[in-house]
């Protein structure tokens, strides 16, 4: 049969230029934004540091040393030590692991819930749509921080509670985006062709519609990570996030609540402040650039 050779030709051809279409044009567009490219590399460095610094550091995050407490930055302790002599450089990146990890997990979970419910609402419309979107409206009405604090103080404040709480509180926005896109895509003739061909609902939703909304989801998720880092930080700062002694960026910067620390021990809180600032900035710039690349019409 000729087809076997054709299939293989197809599959090899696929790699070099066939898939180019949509994603590669987004990528090209993205690369034109120099600031976004720089942000991407900065973020990469931060992420790599969060992964590798705790591995290679001679200190651990819990290791105290009363002889070396509250030391300013030095060759031995690059970002100094805290009031019980823990190495702040190590703690900063362990904190980064937790803060970034939690944010990624929250956004991932939020996307799964939001995509699923948004797709169902947009695809089926009618009663299903009404029900899901009313529930979404209710969730959007909640005063976010207050509910977070309530839930976290009722249950324990472990990472799982935190992740689930944040994700469950923030899926409605992504569900709305997905639903709106699906509503407009649903009317296109290729979806009608699916109906005429007898393609199943699940395939229509997940193979035909979803790939067309993924770009928007990715944009939202990127911006969402920045937002979640800030939320996690605020919660930790309020003492409602991950509890001591586990460091997070929020827990570290919380040291600045003490006026004496704010005044005299700047190395307790400046590095984590800078890390939060840089990371959030980078995610936001990347998200903005992706949005412009995905949909030039959305550009302000």
């Amino acid at each position, binding site marked *: 049969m000729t*087809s*076997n050779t*054709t299939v293989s030709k*197809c599959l090899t051809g696929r790699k070099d230029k066939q898939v180019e*279409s*949509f994603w590669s044009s987004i990528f090209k567009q993205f690369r034109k934004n120099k600031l976004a490219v720089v942000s991407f590399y900065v973020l990469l460095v931060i992420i790599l540091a969060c992964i590798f610094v705790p591995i290679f550091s001679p200190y651990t995050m819990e290791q105290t040393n009363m002889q070396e407490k509250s030391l300013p930055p030095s060759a031995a302790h690059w970002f100094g030590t805290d009031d019980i002599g823990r190495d702040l450089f190590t703690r900063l990146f362990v904190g980064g692991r937790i803060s970034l990890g939690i944010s990624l997990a929250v956004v991932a979970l939020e996307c799964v819930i939001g995509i699923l419910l948004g797709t169902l609402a947009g695809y089926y419309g009618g009663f299903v749509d009404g029900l899901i979107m009313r529930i979404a409206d209710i969730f959007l009405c909640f005063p976010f921080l207050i509910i977070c604090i309530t839930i976290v103080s009722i249950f324990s404040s472990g990472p799982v509670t935190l992740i689930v709480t944040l994700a469950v509180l923030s899926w409605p926005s992504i569900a709305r985006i997905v639903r709106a896109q699906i509503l407009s895509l649903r009317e296109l003739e*290729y979806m009608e*062709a699916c109906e005429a061909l*007898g393609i199943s609902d699940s395939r229509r939703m997940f193979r035909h519609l979803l790939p067309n909304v993924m770009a928007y989801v990715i944009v939202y998720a990127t911006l969402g990570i920045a937002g979640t880092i800030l939320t996690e930080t605020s919660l930790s700062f309020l003492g409602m996030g991950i509890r001591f002694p586990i460091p997070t960026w929020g827990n570290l910067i919380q040291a600045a609540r003490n006026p004496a620390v704010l005044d005299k021990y700047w190395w307790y809180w400046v590095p984590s402040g800078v890390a939060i600032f840089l990371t959030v900035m980078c995610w936001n710039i990347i998200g903005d650039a992706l949005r412009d690349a995905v949909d030039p019409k959305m550009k302000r």
Partner: protein
Amino acid sequence: MSDTATKHEVLLRVDDLVKHFPIRGGLFKQVKSHVRAVDHVSFEIERGKVLGIVGESGCGKTTLGRTVLRLTPRTAGKVFFKDKDIFEQGKGNLLKLRTKMQIIFQDPYSSLNPRLPVNEIIGEALVQHGMVKNKSEMMDRVIDIIEKCGLFPEQACRYPHQFSGGQRQRICIARALVLNPEFVVCDETVSALDVSIQSQIINLLKEMQEHLGLTYLFISHDLSVVRFISDQVGVMYLGELVEYGEKNQIFNTPRHPYTEALLSAAPTFDFAELRTRKRIILKGDIPSPVNPPSGCRFHTRCPFAQELCSIESPEDIEVEPGHRVRCHMASGKISASGH
């Protein structure tokens, strides 16, 4: 091709089909009125024949085609495909029927999903209906059909954006024909294409129809295309089928003033025809299908309209075998000269 036994098998029978779209408005989105997109349309298509549907924009051609395939619910009436009422079929039966009835759309851009490669666009229904056992068998079928439709095997893994409009329409045709359907609705399949490509696609459709013994409901506003491809022709006006008959009956001896107007507006290169035919210029615009005129819907624009036309709606009269007209002149209730 077809012998006399199969010749008279009615493949599709549309019986008094009505499709109204509700218009909602006001505070509670209540139904305010209806768009009468398709109103009491009846016709039959025999196996292996092509019924051309012509009419102005907005007269309900697309809606008719979609309703006939049950892509949208009907308001009233029946559609029989091989003596089965398609609106009475359960989910499973309908799914089986889907493989027998296909549609090719007007816009080759919006009718192909940009995120799927061509082999998947064409082959997914084969997999869905269990018509192929595995991926390589699917690929064989896909390559077979795209070659028949004038594309190359190596194009099978490309994405729609890598094709021109005419090629995309070939993909759409391949997608519809890969399931071996018996009946295909072609909804203005060539209108969106360049004139030079139109004839290629028309020829492809005609070739496929003859080879595979397909039955078409061929929707178009281009009379020359309809004349080329059809066996029967139906003329629609504001949701009604105002005239229906064999191609020659419609083109040579049209009985409805609207058909005459359409024919006289179409360009022709036949000088004998040019000399003999009377030109009918229609007054005014097509009225809204939300509030169609009383009586005969065409009376507001008809050059022969009389009082009766605005009061009484004309019945469907068979003026000669297989030739039906909705006009008071055809039924003899009024005469053209009486004006």
